[in-house]
């Protein structure tokens, strides 16, 4: 970093002013927000404006309208499903952008920092034995969370994140070659595309029938059992796959520039 002395002096002076401005801006920001918060409805009190007929219907009729016991799952995957479609697309676009930025092209560009690090966790005995113990538990746990998303706390996003973390753990503990046996680049892209396509088509169907006031043919099932909630269970599973793939894929891309 070679700056000429004049530039350096200017930069330092600029920094000093900048710090003062930063301080003032943050103070002003905090003051405005604090004043606003003092004027907001009281914390934790029943009867605040946010508690209105919308909530009444979500809780009062959520079970019979969507078949989901977990009302949050009913809200994100059925009542306000368009938001969640957008949310999945945010994940998708971030994944695409990360692939675009970090994927190595063979022969053109190699990861420099990868060569610099000499650490190989695969050789660590303690880590490997703990990983061997944890991976099956984590797999079961993540699948439980995904599949039970409409019955208890959790759902596709939470479970998918745990599933992705399990894959990452496997990858670190046993090396990329073994991980490639169940998830290589091609199958990764296919999984994501298939899951997203299913998601879009299923939601598109329900938007279309809902918007045109047509009846939906998907049964809601017996409330409280695993196979209830109409589309919520399959949607949770697809969301879980997408999230797991995105988490794992992002890890691999950051780690070595490819799956």
């Amino acid at each position, binding site marked *: 970093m070679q700056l000429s002395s004049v530039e350096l002096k200017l930069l330092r002076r600029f920094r000093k002013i900048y710090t003062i401005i930063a301080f003032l801006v943050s103070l002003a920001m905090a003051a405005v927000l604090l004043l606003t918060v003092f004027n907001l409805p009281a914390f934790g009190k029943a009867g605040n404006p946010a508690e209105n007929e919308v909530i009444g219907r979500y809780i009062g009729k959520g079970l019979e309208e969507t078949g989901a016991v977990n009302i949050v799952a009913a809200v994100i995957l059925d009542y306000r499903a368009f938001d969640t479609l957008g949310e999945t697309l945010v994940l998708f676009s971030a994944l695409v952008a990360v692939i675009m930025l970090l994927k190595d092209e063979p022969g053109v560009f190699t990861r420099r920092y990868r060569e610099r*690090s*000499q*650490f190989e*966790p695969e050789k*660590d005995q*303690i*880590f490997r034995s*703990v990983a061997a*113990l*944890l991976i099956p538990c984590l797999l079961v746990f993540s699948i439980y969370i995904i599949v039970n998303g409409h019955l208890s706390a959790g759902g596709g996003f939470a479970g998918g994140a745990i599933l992705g973390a399990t894959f990452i753990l496997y990858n670190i503990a046993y090396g990329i070659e073994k991980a490639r046996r169940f998830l290589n680049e091609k199958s990764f892209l296919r999984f994501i595309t298939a899951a997203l396509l299913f998601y879009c088509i299923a939601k598109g169907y329900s938007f279309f029938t809902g918007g045109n006031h047509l009846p939906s043919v998907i049964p809601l099932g017996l409330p409280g059992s695993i196979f209830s909630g109409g589309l919520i269970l399959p949607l949770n599973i697809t969301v879980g796959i997408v999230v797991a793939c995105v988490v794992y894929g992002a890890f691999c891309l950051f780690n070595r520039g490819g799956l």
Partner: protein
Amino acid sequence: MIRMILAAILIGAGLFVLAVATLGIFRFHYVLNRIHVAAKCDTLGAMLFLSGLAVLEGFSFSTLKLILIIVFLWFTNPVASHLVTRVEFQTAAELEDECKVICSGGEREGQ
């Protein structure tokens, strides 16, 4: 009543340990010092805190879950700290300047 007091003591001790750990992370300068504080105190603090909650709850399904969380933390936290320490040990350039104790063992690269 006794249960409440016991739980309060456990939770208070857990919070104290966590506070000390946080202070330590800010106070120390090198990775190895910091991981030393963070690893021990996170494991101990979380354990005390969660067992306090378990005592408060009594015998129930939630207590079982809390115990599972403690077991999970005991598995993962030391291993994670161990891995971080190893990376630091193998890749840090100025390790000898940081810790005055001479490092023995030939695992370190370039020695």
